[in-house]
């Protein structure tokens, strides 16, 4: 790996925390000040299966379409200022995503100035039967069951891949790197590692890069968004600044945001993000390194600046995590709103009536869940007793392997408006929608089985 070391500090900016995040953020990150890299994270656990369904309908689809608009909005920065972009927007079809990006570059008059790097090899779906036959059982990490029991319902299967192929794409001159199921954290760590020439043995530094990635991978969630600490006084969320990592060769880094943006970066806001989705903090396992979150030191280092140091890591395991998505039946959720007086009593009575009717119809569900929104939906019995709520939303959800059963449920809610308890409203949205459930199956596979490829054009 060749060390670039063109600068003492490398600035990696986060412009997207999930598919559906703020469309303005990528452009604001490149226009708000100097950055070297823009990192865009589009993939959540279920996103791959949605993309797989799109690809089945149209072989040119299967990637995060928002990315095309994002590139369009920042094309001058890529072409003229040398900002490089790394995104897992490729979904289950990175080559098609790359094609779309080349199209945007051409239309934007930046032909020849955009070199697209494509990382593939994470998609295990075409190889799934071969892998199972070779004895890779892909047992569910939570339940221990072998994948064979849901094989006929599998929609997508992707290995989480690390920073190495992204580094290769950068080294070969790509200024837009598109991956499929890369880990979110690798998107940030890869450019830092590339610039400073960190090798596989630099566990502490790689772990620092991973933790930098974890801090910014959810976008503004570390810079004032969804921040409980002192939330009333966080300035100007309408203009919130997304986070930027300022990384140094020694593995220390600062979390900052562009000047004159809203939000807040503080030890508290960064700590809240660090504990988000945390498991065992001693072992944050990635394809590149195992990071130890109990080693992280955070120092307030001025307004909207947190200095991060002390991070330790250990060599990675010989496994990769695999995310499999499979069809798991159908569900629907319907709601009605009951008003004062006796709002909760009315909602409870309506639920009784509804359940009796579903039973009379002989409908059986894998699950039938009733919640009273405004009373107990989020905190359950911990919320305590409520008297005289101004209104209560009755929210009923069902799940079944049989679509027709769920369909029938969706017809039973609206009649309650005229033939159930009184003072009911809030049904203007119409009948609940039946959704196919795509469930998630986490598994492990031997690293050697997954071969990534990099193409730069």
């Amino acid at each position: 790996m060749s060390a670039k070391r063109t600068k003492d500090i490398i600035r990696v900016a986060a412009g997207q925390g999930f598919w559906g995040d703020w469309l303005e953020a990528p452009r604001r990150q490149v226009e708000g000040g100097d950055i070297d890299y823009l990192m865009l994270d589009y993939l959540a656990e279920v996103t791959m299966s949605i993309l797989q369904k799109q690809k089945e309908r149209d072989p040119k689809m299967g990637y995060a379409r928002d990315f095309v608009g994002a590139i369009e909005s920042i094309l001058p920065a890529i072409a003229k200022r040398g900002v490089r972009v790394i995104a897992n927007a490729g979904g289950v079809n990175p080559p098609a995503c790359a094609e779309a990006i080349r199209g945007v570059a051409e239309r934007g008059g930046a032909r020849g100035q955009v070199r697209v790097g494509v990382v593939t090899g994470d998609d295990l779906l075409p190889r799934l039967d071969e892998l199972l036959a070779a004895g890779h059982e892909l047992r569910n990490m939570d339940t221990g069951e072998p994948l064979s029991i849901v094989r006929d319902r599998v929609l997508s299967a992707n290995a989480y891949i690390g920073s190495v192929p992204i580094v290769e794409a950068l080294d070969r001159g790509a200024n837009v790197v598109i991956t499929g199921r890369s880990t979110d954290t690798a998107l940030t760590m890869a450019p830092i590692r590339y610039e400073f020439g960190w090798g596989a043995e630099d566990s502490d530094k790689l772990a620092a890069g991973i933790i930098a990635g974890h801090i910014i991978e959810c976008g503004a969630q570390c810079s004032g968004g969804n921040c409980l600490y002192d939330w009333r006084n966080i300035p100007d969320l309408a203009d919130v600044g997304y986070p930027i990592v300022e990384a140094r060769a020694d593995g220390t880094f600062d979390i900052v945001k562009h000047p004159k943006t809203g939000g807040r970066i503080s030890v508290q806001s960064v700590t809240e993000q660090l504990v988000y989705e945390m498991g065992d903090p001693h072992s944050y396992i990635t394809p590149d390194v195992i990071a130890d979150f109990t080693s992280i030191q955070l120092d307030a280092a001025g307004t909207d600046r947190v200095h991060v140091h002390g991070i330790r890591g250990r060599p990675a395991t010989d496994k990769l995590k695999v995310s499999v998505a499979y069809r798991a039946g159908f569900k629907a959720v319907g709601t009605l709103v009951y008003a004062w007086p006796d709002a909760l009593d009315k909602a409870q009575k309506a639920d009784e009536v509804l359940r009796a009717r579903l039973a009379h119809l002989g409908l059986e569900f894998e699950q039938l869940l009733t919640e009273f929104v405004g009373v107990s939906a989020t905190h359950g019995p911990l919320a305590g007793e409520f008297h005289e709520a101004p209104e209560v939303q009755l929210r009923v959800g069902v799940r079944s392997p049989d679509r027709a059963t769920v369909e029938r449920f969706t017809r039973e809610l609206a009649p309650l408006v005229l033939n159930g308890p009184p003072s009911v409203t809030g049904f203007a949205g119409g009948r609940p929608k039946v959704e196919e459930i795509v469930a998630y199956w986490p598994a492990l596979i031997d690293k050697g089985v997954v071969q990534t490829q990099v193409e730069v054009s």
Partner: protein
Amino acid sequence: MRVQLVDIAHARSGDKGDTANVGLIALRPEWFQFLEKYVTRERVRQHFRGVITGDVERYELPNLKALNFLLHGALDGGGTLSLKTDAQGKVFSTALLRMVLDVPDVEAKRYELPAARQ
């Protein structure tokens, strides 16, 4: 004296399958020791009785003045299977902050803890 977690800590939660995690962070560095001593795995298990179906694990992060709790069986199957409003456990954090602890007065004084508002 009665002390409520919402007055001495902040928190964030997320999900992994059917498990919700809650990171509980001391509002003042010196309160971490108190949290570590009083917000035990057993106390949290008791708090969420009837709300979660599985066990509770606790990890300590003195460097971040934080405790991390894993609440198993919290999400009704989790992810896309769950029918819950909070299918991804985003607000389990605030459910933990409801916890009220009975603290000996001398201990409350030593840590300068605020009394529960209710």
